């Protein structure tokens, strides 16, 4: 692939981030005839959506939507994508940007057929990042079943060891190249759309909720992996400490959101995500009971219907009050939750098999800023300006709104092409 684009007329659009927002922006622009580059730091496209078990409110798997989008990318010559790549530097202005990109090696080239022989031969295991470390994977691995591009990667930690050599020897297609080096290259583009999405808020910072101290406290995004058939437990909802099937689960809303000590804003999706996740547990373990502890449930627009649907299940209960203390029953591993039921005016001390913290969304730009002239709001979300933004790096939003902001960003990006 010709990475050096200098000399070509400046007409391209750079989309940074290959999640649902970035992919949508890229396809919307590409399908009306514009040249688009997607840059993604992971070895695969699909972003957070790829980690979800189901979408709300339809409860369909995201795999099907991603599949369609990957087909659209494959069939469209206007879209080029670079995985394992990050933006190092941006110079210039709308209409004429010079962008420096850095690609880190995955040590596997396009010869890879995903036969899996390298993983079989590999004798080193690493925590599985895709599953938030809830299980392990070989150090030669396919990031996840649906990974696009379908290509294995070697974890850099095994480089120079005999394990790496074993992987190379096992490959019949000459796909493993242990001499791959980081590559820096430049692109000339007319507009840039930032679509780097979000990170789950680090729940360890909410000290009274004991995430990381009490074993059976997990976060909502971990719950997605736990419920997913391609997750660490193959879709069985069992608790981390002892693998016991979860029969009594609590969801703690606003874990870090709407809290000036953590994220002062509402993360928009957590109420729906918890409502959705009650359906996971109710389906997986039919005798189970779920309790949602909330300040107020936010189900905007048509999502109110979804709330009513979940509420109709008598095994799902709702308690108005924010959980502010979580402890472990050391003998059983059960989780003790303290909350004031504000409608009854009583403190409750309840015991659950597992507790899910509805942790909020932090824009990825809280951790890594745009290496160019971007504007931020007070919470580090990127405001569309000279550098455009879309999806969850722009505001906390669900997949549907991500798609909408992406379409808008595509239009703005196209409008910038006329500027010189």
């Amino acid at each position, binding site marked *: 692939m010709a990475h050096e684009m200098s000399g070509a007329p400046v007409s391209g659009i750079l989309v940074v981030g290959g999640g649902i927002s970035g992919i949508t922006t890229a396809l919307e622009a590409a399908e009306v005839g514009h040249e688009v580059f997607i840059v993604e730091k992971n070895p695969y496209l699909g972003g957070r959506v790829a980690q979800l078990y189901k979408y709300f409110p339809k409860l369909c798997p995201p795999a099907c939507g991603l599949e369609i989008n990957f087909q659209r990318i494959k069939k469209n010559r206007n879209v080029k994508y670079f995985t394992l790549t990050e933006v190092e530097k941006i110079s210039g202005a709308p209409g004429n940007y010079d962008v420096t990109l850095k690609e880190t090696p995955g040590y596997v080239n396009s010869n890879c057929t995903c036969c899996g022989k390298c993983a079989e031969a590999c004798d080193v295991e690493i925590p599985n990042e895709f599953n938030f470390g809830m299980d392990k994977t070989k150090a030669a691995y396919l990031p996840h079943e649906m990974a696009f591009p379908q290509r294995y990667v070697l974890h850099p930690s095994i480089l120079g060891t005999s394990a790496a050599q074993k992987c190379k020897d096992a490959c019949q297609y000459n796909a493993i190249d242990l001499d791959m080096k980081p590559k820096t290259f430049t692109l000339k583009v007319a507009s840039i759309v930032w679509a780097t999405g979000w990170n789950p808020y680090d729940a360890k910072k909410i000290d*009274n909720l004991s995430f990381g101290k009490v074993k059976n406290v997990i976060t909502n995004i971990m719950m997605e992996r736990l419920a997913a058939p391609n997750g660490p437990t193959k879709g069985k909802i069992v608790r981390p400490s002892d693998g016991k099937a979860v029969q009594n689960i609590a969801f703690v809303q*606003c874990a870090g959101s*709407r*809290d*000036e*000590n*953590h994220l002062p804003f509402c993360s928009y999706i957590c109420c729906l995500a918890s409502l959705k996740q009650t359906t996971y547990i109710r389906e997986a373990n039919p005798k189970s009971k779920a309790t949602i502890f909330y*300040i107020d449930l936010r189900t905007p627009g048509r999502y109110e219907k979804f709330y009513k649907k979940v509420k109709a299940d008598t095994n799902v209960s709702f308690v108005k*009050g*924010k*959980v*502010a*203390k979580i402890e472990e029953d050391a003998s059983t591993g059960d989780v003790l939750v*303290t*909350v*004031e039921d*504000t409608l009854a*005016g*009583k*403190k409750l001390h309840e015991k659950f098999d597992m507790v899910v913290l509805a942790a909020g969304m932090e824009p990825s730009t809280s951790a890594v800023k745009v290496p160019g002239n971007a504007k931020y709001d007070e919470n580090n979300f990127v405001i569309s300006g000279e550098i455009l933004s879309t999806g969850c790096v722009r505001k906390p939003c669900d997949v549907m709104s991500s798609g909408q902001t992406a379409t808008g960003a595509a239009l703005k990006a196209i409008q910038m092409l006329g500027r010189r």
Partner: protein
Amino acid sequence: MAEANVIKPDLEFVKKIMNSGGESLKKCYQCATCSVVCNVTPEDKPFPRKEMIQAQWGLKDKLFSNPDIWLCHQCSDCTAYCPRGAKPGEVLGAIRKLSIEHYAFPSFLGKAVGDPKYLLGLLAVPVVIFLTVLGYLGHLRIPEGEISYAEKFMPVLAVEAIFIAAALFACLGFFAGVVRYWRDLKSGAELSTNKWQRMVKGPIPVIIINTILEFMTHRRFQKCEVTKDRSNAHMFVFFGFAGLAIAAVWALVYLYGYEFFGIKTSGIFNFGLSPYPLHDPMKIFANISALALFAGILQVIMNRKNNAEKAGNGSYYDWLFISIILTIVTTGILSEVLRLADIAALAYPVYFIHLVFVFFLFAYAPFSKMAHMAYRTTALVFAKYSGREDKKYS
């Protein structure tokens, strides 16, 4: 639920809370984090979440006819964890101030002590009283020779007459306030259908002794987490005061033991007129108490500064009380030091200021934050009496 329960918000009262240090009140969105992180709140109808909504609606009677605002020691655990910066600790502090004002007798003094406008007027009262006495005695100048406050400046009899009058005035205020508060507490409990308010836990004298023992050990106060050091600081202030009170009585024994019973210096005890020698046990005890009070109040100030970010800055009412104590203890210690250093030009004026501020503390005790000692005791006794306090603390 046959009758509609119509709530009449008292907007004036809401404004009063906001002007008394509870300006963050309206930020509360009733999540109840505060009720959970509080280590001293009961299980049933826990505070301070319910106080926050009652305060937002201005439900004065509900807030006052209830011991809960005084069960709070304002350790600020709630304020530190509050997701909205609503500062429940500060709001409850403001409500306590208004409660003191509400039960104040005479009521205009309740308002005056809480309002910076009247500070100079309040100070003028003791200034005028002491100046009048000094003028009458012809002591309105710096006396010559060896410094003796009692002999050359303000006779013990005058000091005692003025302070006993001030103390009686304060006792009257306390009595009237506490009686009215107790009556409201009882009627609040009778109106309530909650069973906690019907379970009598034992005879009142036993409960009072229990409550006082609890104060001595600061058992409740020590359950606070965010501002843990506050309970230690308060302990120093508390015992500093207690020690000085004992020393004052002790000094009276020296004085009247000599004057009425003719007891002269016996053993190590120096009966007679002040000043007493530094090696006298009473003097040693008094000096240690003064230093404890000084160390305590300095620590209170430092804690407040250090915790300001998490616990709030405190109100005029808080700082007035702290300033009064700080002034009393510094002028008290300085009076002694300056006397020993024989710097008359400074010693007498400093002693004068000392008297003025001690009067301020005494006479206005039922209206200043000092009143917390009476109202908190009443509330805790009632809480134990009515079963409002959890077993673990009673």
